[in-house]
């Protein structure tokens, strides 16, 4: 028998009171009896925090947590679990997810130690294509509990109490959304999972579905029960083929195992889920546009009210939540709203997943409790800026987020504080920017994206962002004026307040926040025609240095005839003729061209 078993027994005061010392003796005795002493290790641990279920003991492999048993039960557990490899279900207690996670991902402690994984609790741990893996980690137990002894009202009360807020960006209280949808009377209601993740650089939803699709399914079925819906739809981007495959497989497996379909787990409750693919429009992540897209129309947001909870998909009451929100639901049911709401800040509970990218050593997907500071994420988990460069800004919330400067690094992350700082939580993009980046150019980059992805319906977003972009291009080309900065602010503030949907309402954020936090850079571009990061091509000045050997390579390559000089003598660039294309810099074999 190659496997070695490990028994970890809680040695906390409460368990001692419940005779854990005696139990250890009993275990040793039992192991001796079966000649298992050298194959099974016994450890004692500090309090495992499950005092009400004491005595508590964990047997690995199997990750079985036994509780509320007596010495008399020990022979059975040893015989069944260790000899027959069948855990004794009767004594298995509802293990705490955090505890479970801790054991599983331990080993990469620098990265994971400072995180807290709830939504991503199973990601990177289980085989996402095997429902058994999910079930073995208490998968679908939350659903079973809901169907066994919770009323819809009680489920909603629990979600409300947890303080969970929509993880898609706006942060609307999830429980209230559920309650509003439940309140509506209708022959049909829908539950939608918004997996149309479109932010450039964001991949939280993709990873969550690819790593743990069943948690989404479970969350949706619970919601269906709570609001009185029988149909669910996962709206997912077609650009995520693997995630599509895995969610479809999960749905099929769940149906086979009786977690979907008719009479779920013998409860009489029916629920079906289907998958709909998005065609890649960023704006389809906006809920009203998403629903129009499902209906077969062009995805364009419509004014609210009516809200989807009243009139959503096909005019029926519809509950729509984002992937990460769904992933939290089973945990809240299993571990309780009180526990969940003990995490995070006053108004933002639980954790948040961020896609950490840009100029940071450890790029990656991180999940941290609300209230963690930007500094902790960027430096402690992300490992700081590579190459000893200077931190310049961090952009949160995807392309519509704001760029925060160093003074905001100790901002505790939650919906309110990020908004106060001039950015947004968004769906969780986090891009770190170092001194090599030009903030005007960064703002231009993000605006280019949102401007392209504007659905074109409302005037401020369609026309206004275009004009803002033109002004930014002007500034980066050295043609800006002082008035241009004011115009950006005037347009930006109007677009924020007048646009139809969240896309337009947040599109000016990168521009407004960079003007607020990095105004000096804008002014340098405008007044001194200078880009301190050396990014804005048109503002560069090319010069020939003394390293020039007069090979004339640059002279030949220059498309504007701006280089002059005799062979074998130092050449000269006429800055009035130079179009700043950079060809001379590229062709020079002697490093003799300097750009500044």
């Amino acid at each position, binding site marked *: 028998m190659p496997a070695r078993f490990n028994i970890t027994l809680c040695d906390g005061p409460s368990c001692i009171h419940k005779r854990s010392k005696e139990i250890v003796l009993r275990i040793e005795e039992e192991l001796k009896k079966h000649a298992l002493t050298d194959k099974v290790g016994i450890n004692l641990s500090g309090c495992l925090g499950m005092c009400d279920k004491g005595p508590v003991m964990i047997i690995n492999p199997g990750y079985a947590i036994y509780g509320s048993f007596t010495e008399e039960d020990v022979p059975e557990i040893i015989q069944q679990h260790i000899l027959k490899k069948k855990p004794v279900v009767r004594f298995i207690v509802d293990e705490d997810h955090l505890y479970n996670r801790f054991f599983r991902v331990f080993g990469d402690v620098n990265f994971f130690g400072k995180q807290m994984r709830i939504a991503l609790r199973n990601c990177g741990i289980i085989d996402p294509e095997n429902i058994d893996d999910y079930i073995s980690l208490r998968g679908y137990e939350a659903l079973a509990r809901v169907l066994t002894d919770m009323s819809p009202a009680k489920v909603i009360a629990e979600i409300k109490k947890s303080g969970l807020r929509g993880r898609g960006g706006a942060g609307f209280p999830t429980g209230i959304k559920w309650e509003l949808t439940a309140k509506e009377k209708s022959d049909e209601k829908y539950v939608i999972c918004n997996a149309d993740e479109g932010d450039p650089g964001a991949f939280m939803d993709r990873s969550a579905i690819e790593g743990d699709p069943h948690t989404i399914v479970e969350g949706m079925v619970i919601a269906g029960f709570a609001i009185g819906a029988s149909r669910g739809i996962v709206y997912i981007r077609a650009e995520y083929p693997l995630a599509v495959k895995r969610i479809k497989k999960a749905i099929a497996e769940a149906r086979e195992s009786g977690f979907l379909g008719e009479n779920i787990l013998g409860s009489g409750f029916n629920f079906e889920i289907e998958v709909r693919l998005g065609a890649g429009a960023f704006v389809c992540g906006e809920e009203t546009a998403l629903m129009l897209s499902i209906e077969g129309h*062009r995805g*364009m947001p419509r*004014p609210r009210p009516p809200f989807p909870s009243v009139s959503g998909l096909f005019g029926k009451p519809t509950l729509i939540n984002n992937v990460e929100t769904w992933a939290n639901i089973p945990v809240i049911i299993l571990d309780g709203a009180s526990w969940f709401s003990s995490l995070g800040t006053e108004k933002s509970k639980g954790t948040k997943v961020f896609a950490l990218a840009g100029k940071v050593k450890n790029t990656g997907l991180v999940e941290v409790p609300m209230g963690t500071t930007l500094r902790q994420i960027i430096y402690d988990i992300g490992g700081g800026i590579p190459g000893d460069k200077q931190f310049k800004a961090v952009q949160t919330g995807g392309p519509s987020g704001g760029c925060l400067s160093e003074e905001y690094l100790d901002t505790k992350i939650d919906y309110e504080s990020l908004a106060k700082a001039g950015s947004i939580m968004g769906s969780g993009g986090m891009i770190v920017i170092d001194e090599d980046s030009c903030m005007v150019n960064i703002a231009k980059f993000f605006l280019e994206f949102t401007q392209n992805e504007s659905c074109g319906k409302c*005037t*401020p977003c369609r026309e206004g962002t275009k004009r803002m972009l033109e002004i930014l291009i002007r500034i980066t080309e050295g043609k800006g004026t002082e008035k241009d900065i004011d115009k950006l602010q005037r347009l930006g503030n109007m677009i924020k*307040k*007048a646009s*139809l949907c969240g896309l337009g*309402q947040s599109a000016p954020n990168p521009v407004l926040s960079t003007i607020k936090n990095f105004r000096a850079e804008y002014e340098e571009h405008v007044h001194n025609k200078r880009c301190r990061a050396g990014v804005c091509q048109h503002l560069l000045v090319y010069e020939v240095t003394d390293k020039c050997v007069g090979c004339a390579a640059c002279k030949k390559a220059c498309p504007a005839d701006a280089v002059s000089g005799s062979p074998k003598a130092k050449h000269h660039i006429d800055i009035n003729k130079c179009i700043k294309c950079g060809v001379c810099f590229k062709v020079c074999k002697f490093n003799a061209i300097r750009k500044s």
Partner: protein
Amino acid sequence: MITIFINDKPYQVEPEQTIMQAADRLGFHIPRLCYHPKLSIEGACRVCIVEVVGMRNYVASCAYPVSEGMKIYTNTEEIRRARRDIVELILDNHPEDCHTCERDGNCELQRLAFAMGIRKRHFEGEKKHYEKDLSSASVIRDPNKCILCGRCVRICSEIQKVNALGYAHRGFKTVVMPAYNMPFKDSVCTTCGQCINVCPTSAFIEKNFTQELFQKLGDKSLIKVAQIAPSVRAAIGEAFALEPGRQLEKELTAALRKLGFDYVFDTQFSADLTIMEEASEFLERFQGKGKLPMITSCSSAWMKCLEQFYPDLIDNVSTCKSPMSMASALIKTYFAKKIKADPKKILSVACMCCTAKKYEALRPELMVDGMQATDMVITTRELAWMIKSAGIDLLHIKGEEFDHPLGYSSGAGTIFGVTGGVMEAAIRTAYELYTGETLLDIEIQDIRGLKGIKEGKLIIDGKEIRVAVAHGLGNANEILSAIRTDPERYHFVEIMGCPGGCIGGGGQPYAGSNSMPLDEECLMKRAEALYGLDRNKTIRRSHENPDVQRLYKEFLGRPLGAVSHKLLHTHYSPKEPRGIVPAELTVK
């Protein structure tokens, strides 16, 4: 009732309405652009934004409901500036060739820009540039003028249910176009022209023949003949700043002669003729020869719609040509013979309330002896422009009578212009032809008015005849679907392509500065103008029109006879709606 505050003053208003509706009733006209009372709420232009205390962002008043204690500000410095900037943004991407634009002086955007006080420009930049689509016989599409309010898209899908238009591309490149950007003529567009009526600018406009017509009117070798549709006289006054509802029949006749027409005929005469043929056709079908229900065929947009979307119902549709095409056929045969003229030297011009008639004129099925029967169709709008351009004082002109032999009409021919009118006229005649008795109550109220679908019953000789009337292709769709499932439901159905019938045609004058296109009050006044003409006539039944009787005696023989068959009837054939699948993808 609830209390709301507008600009700090309390008002009692009904709940369950939008801020804009409440404000309208209180006398605050919040500026607006994409909003249209007959269409769904788009919330796209953002011109109607207001400030609401407690809301983070501005609120689109067209979409947001009032609530108890709501504090609304419609005219603060901040909101004025935001609105101004929004309208400027629209102008920045608009050609601004106002002086050479068809809608100069009549443009909602122009009015709005003036009202917003845009005197300086702050944000000018790149403008869009697209080719105009000139392919359609009736409607020109000019995306450069389009401000993406979406009214055309909505009227085409919601009121007409044709769905010829949609949005393509994203962001700044968004453009309204037919599917796959097919040429308009190949799209499912029925040429009804309602997009023109609701467009606030001139992104949609009729194909204009005024210059060409002026040229032809100066050609002395041609005999210039005009005909006027009933609804033109009921609406053209609006283009001369008259209140809706004043008919200008005699003034128009005089004006057309002053424009250079040699003969001015009345389409109402051929409407009477249509009734003779159509009532007879109905009675034949009713007696077992042919399919029931019979559906009318006067509306050209409905004809195109039929061939594209309801080919299975072609046999149900009357074979009668429209009154315009009947008149044109007679002008080039009967009339030409009468005045001993070469029909090829006759220029037959139809003044219509309709854009689809431009398309109808080109239908090969309507050729007479190898000639196009109607040489040119101009809309009420084009005619009004020509009258103004020629310096004719329409409002103070001395009225004149129509020419004979195609100028005298009964009251039944007049009411053709209103939804339900064809049916009413047909009943007046069919009843009397069938029973030989006089129908006493000839004003059939059941099928009058602007309800989308109207139904009625009458007993002829002890037999019940069930009739239905639909106006607007969306309403037509409902009746036609009902017929598909229950062919026995009706005997006789009238369908008009435009809301209100011809009085609401796609070629009628633009709404004035204080009303909206499709305004029911305006449509009712136009209708009343025609009903008034009917009431004041001594002859109100088509079969009693002495000129019609003479025409049969001298030329046609009898209704549904051989000559009628050749000149007054036509046929339809199914047309695969192209423009749904791009040409290169269709299976050959």
